[in-house]
């Protein structure tokens, strides 16, 4: 757990520095009032709360990024932390307390190795097509694996690749970030290592640079919308399915 804590943005040293810096310069009375409001809003929300949503409830003059930074600093090192995912904020328990909070009765279903690898390929390589996933894993993807991933809500159909056969492209969702405690997709663990190894340039000509995984809502240049074609044959493959 302890080395994991290092990877976690909550335990990020830069964040800690920023936090201690902010704590040193105390918020004004007005900022305190705004912090209270944001605190209550994020606390009450059922889902991570968007910054726009908060901005709507605050006076126009309020400096939302600063208020959230103060609030985050206030919860730094506490049992409950304020965490950002994309442009949304939520409270959650500190990762190092997992041991005390784990509930015996609920054992979340573990993903198979095939599903976990497929998820990793989609996450690190997105937008990724089925053929790209199969190329990396060297084995055909069973329909069941992709179904499981779509069911978790961590993977979504992004669009179609502008290439022969117009294959469906897959990407990760906000729920994926939320589940794995990532602020943004570039926080994926080991991403720098993978990028440095130049292992994801398979489909790109040399010198093109290593693609950065992207989970933006917008489509990339080589993607187009899903359209209304049936998706059933998105899983068609002439590779034999994995056992």
């Amino acid at each position: 757990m302890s080395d994991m804590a290092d990877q976690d943005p909550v335990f990020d040293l830069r964040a800690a520095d920023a936090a201690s810096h902010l704590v040193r310069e105390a918020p004004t009375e007005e900022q305190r009032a705004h912090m209270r409001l944001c605190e209550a809003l994020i606390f009450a929300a059922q889902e991570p709360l968007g910054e726009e949503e908060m901005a709507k409830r605050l006076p126009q003059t309020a400096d939302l990024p600063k208020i959230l930074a103060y609030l985050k600093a206030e919860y730094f090192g506490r049992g409950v932390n304020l965490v950002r995912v994309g442009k949304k904020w939520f409270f959650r328990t500190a990762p190092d307390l997992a041991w005390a909070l784990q509930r015996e009765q609920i054992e979340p279903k573990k993903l198979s190795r095939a599903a976990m690898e497929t998820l990793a390929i989609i996450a690190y390589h997105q937008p990724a097509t089925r053929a790209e996933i199969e190329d990396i894993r060297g084995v055909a993807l069973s329909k069941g694996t992709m179904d499981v991933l779509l069911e978790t809500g961590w993977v979504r159909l992004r669009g179609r690749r502008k290439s022969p056969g117009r294959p469906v492209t897959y990407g990760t969702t906000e729920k994926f970030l939320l589940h794995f405690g990532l602020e943004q997709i570039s926080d994926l663990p080991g991403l720098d290592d993978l990028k440095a190894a130049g292992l994801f340039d398979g489909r790109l000509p040399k010198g093109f640079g290593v693609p950065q995984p992207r989970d933006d809502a917008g489509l990339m240049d080589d993607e187009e919308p899903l359209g209304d074609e049936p998706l059933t044959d998105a899983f068609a493959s002439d590779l034999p399915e994995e056992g």
Partner: protein
Amino acid sequence: MDGGQVDSFEDRREEEAFRVDLDGYEGPLDLLLELARRQKVDLARISVLALAEQYLKFVEEARRVRLELAADYLVMAAWLAYLKSRLLLPAPPKAAEPDAASLAASLAHRLQRLQKIRAAAELLGERPHMGRDIFPRGNPEGVDVVNAPVYQASLYDLLSAYARQRQKQALSNVSLLKTRTVWSLAEAREALERILGMALEWTALDDYLIQWVANPAQARTVRASTFSATLELVKEGRIDLRQDHTFGPLWLRRKGEPPPPAIAAE
């Protein structure tokens, strides 16, 4: 693919003895990666030739014990056999095909890539999971939703509502002063009696009605009341009434004249 299989995979790795067993391998690349790991060197400096030999030996062994091999294992074997021969032979002076060294490099690259993504999957899996290690607020209050009704109506709705009720009220107020729209039996009888003297010959009831009913909208009530009144007069023996066929006109005349032969015959 569950935890159990992952364990058996680990066990297998520790087990140094070469065993022909394809269970748990996810295709030829997976098997190659496992074989490469046994070389215990950096994947970037792996001996592809040695790897190819090991793979081919594995496949031969498998066929010897008549193990069913999936087609892709055989395709990979064929490709590796080709690669092996290319690696052993001196490179042809003008090769149209890619040289053996770059084919080998590309295989090593694929293996490295698979290994890295496996490591990444593991790192991802080790992160604290929401709902397992980290928890959101257990019972968020949520945000109260206050319904703010926004009423919608068009000017046309307003004007037609106004006209509708004004007209309705205007007409019902006026109708109270007008003659009744229903003809009573007494009215019908009185009217009939007053004109009875004219009906010495057979006369159609409708003729009277048309003569008496100014407003066509009243035809129905007038016909009904008048018919009832004629029946009363027949009963009193003051008129004769006949109808030649179903739904035909009703004929009536003052009593006392001799009946026509056709009627007498009936």
